[in-house]
């Protein structure tokens, strides 16, 4: 009886793993489907770049939300999906940049050079992606062990990356800032929660001693 309970639990967690693994793939599947159906309007290039960009942001925010949600709701099981979500964010960011270079710039060297040297929001976005790559590369358990305490320090870069991604997004406001405001407020909470936790921890100790 104990055995079947363990197997049952394992199967449930297996199913959950697959579900969480497949979910972030759906937006891309939808996008490819629409692109093949020629249903992305007169400017499919722009549509693809915008879509993959916003999903990069969403997955990055989801990655950052895992730790606070786990703590607040005591969802220990969430932790194992943090790396997966982070890697998905990296994946969508790479597709985003490749789509921009391919569909918008046609890999024309002069345009690539111009965009990467003169356009602040392109520079900031590219920088965010470049910084995300080492985090992806060192996300394995082996690397985590090998880097030891340096690993946590390195992965704090994700806060800077999120801020750069947010700036990249804000810099493209034409008239309405509604979306940017929503994403900005969520990010403020995600980062603010951490600051608050860090700030609270050292204060508690002396008060206890006193």
């Amino acid at each position, binding site marked *: 009886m104990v055995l079947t309970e363990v197997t049952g639990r394992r199967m449930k967690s297996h199913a959950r793993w697959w579900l969480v693994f497949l979910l972030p793939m759906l937006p891309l599947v939808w996008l490819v489907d629409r692109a093949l159906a020629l249903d992305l309007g007169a400017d499919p290039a722009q549509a693809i770049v915008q879509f993959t960009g916003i999903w990069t942001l969403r997955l990055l925010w989801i990655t950052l939300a895992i730790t606070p949600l786990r703590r607040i709701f005591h969802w220990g099981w969430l932790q194992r999906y943090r790396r997966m979500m982070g890697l998905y964010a990296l994946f969508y960011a790479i597709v985003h940049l490749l789509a921009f270079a391919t*569909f*918008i710039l046609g890999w024309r060297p002069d345009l690539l050079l111009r965009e990467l040297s003169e356009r602040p929001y392109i520079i900031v976005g590219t920088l965010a992606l470049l910084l995300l790559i080492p985090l992806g590369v060192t996300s394995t358990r082996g690397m985590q062990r090998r880097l030891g305490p340096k690993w946590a320090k390195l992965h704090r870069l994700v806060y800077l990356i999120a801020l750069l991604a947010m700036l990249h997004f804000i810099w493209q406001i034409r*008239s309405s800032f509604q979306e940017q405001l929503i994403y900005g407020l969520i990010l403020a909470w995600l980062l603010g929660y951490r600051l608050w936790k860090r700030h609270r921890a050292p204060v508690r100790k002396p008060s206890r001693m006193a």
Partner: protein
Amino acid sequence: KLREGDRNAALSTSEAPAPYISVTTHNNFYEFGLGKQDPSRKAQKFRTDPWSVEIAGEVNKPGTYALEDLLGPHALEERIYRLRCVEAWSMVIPWMGFPLGDLLKRFEPTSRAKYVAFTTLHDPEQMPGQRGFFSTLDWPYIEGLRMDEAMHPLTLLAVGLYGNALPPQNGAPFRLVVPWKYGFKSIKSIVRIELTEEMPDTTWNLAAPNEYGFYANVNPTVDHPRWSQATERRLPSSLFSPNIIDTQPFNGYAEQVAHLYNGMDLRKWF
């Protein structure tokens, strides 16, 4: 279907027009939403009949006119124009319309008329984009031209597209088309035309004066502060041919209009 109008070949480009579906589903008309496909989805119930237009300011015959009376006397012609958006995409569009100058003359501008100011309908009930709290644009949308620009034969009042009446997402019942300027100058769904002595305010200039000037002439050598204007993507594009072409001074109409700006520093008066 509109009255038949002959193509004005002399003032039309020989480039191939974008398909009707592209022209009518890829629109910047923020009154109906920010997405390019929002206007085509949200403007279909837009009421353009009845429609009246106020002619005001420095004219001898000011007044409010029914659309039919306003447009009635004018023979329509087809003009195939390039349209260059400030966002660095472009399209070729076959408009039906007549020169704005012909209309203005009927109302007898006075000698004090130096500019023409235009206003789009303000109707938040019909235009969801005018209801939002988060827009940096003030409604109604306003635009303007200098008198000589307004009287230029290229400056068109369009009432149709591909031989049919303008669909709402393209600015029904009638709109301005100024082909050598960025698309945002070509104000849609006009309800008011005022001739003024002073340079009028314009919506995008009020929202971001460092990014959008009053003149807004297409100019590959003056970049938007956030992106380049040297090239444009001609739409519709397919994914593996981005259709990138060089942007031309005055959108290719330099021969006809460059003289209007003789002696002006186009970097300063962007």
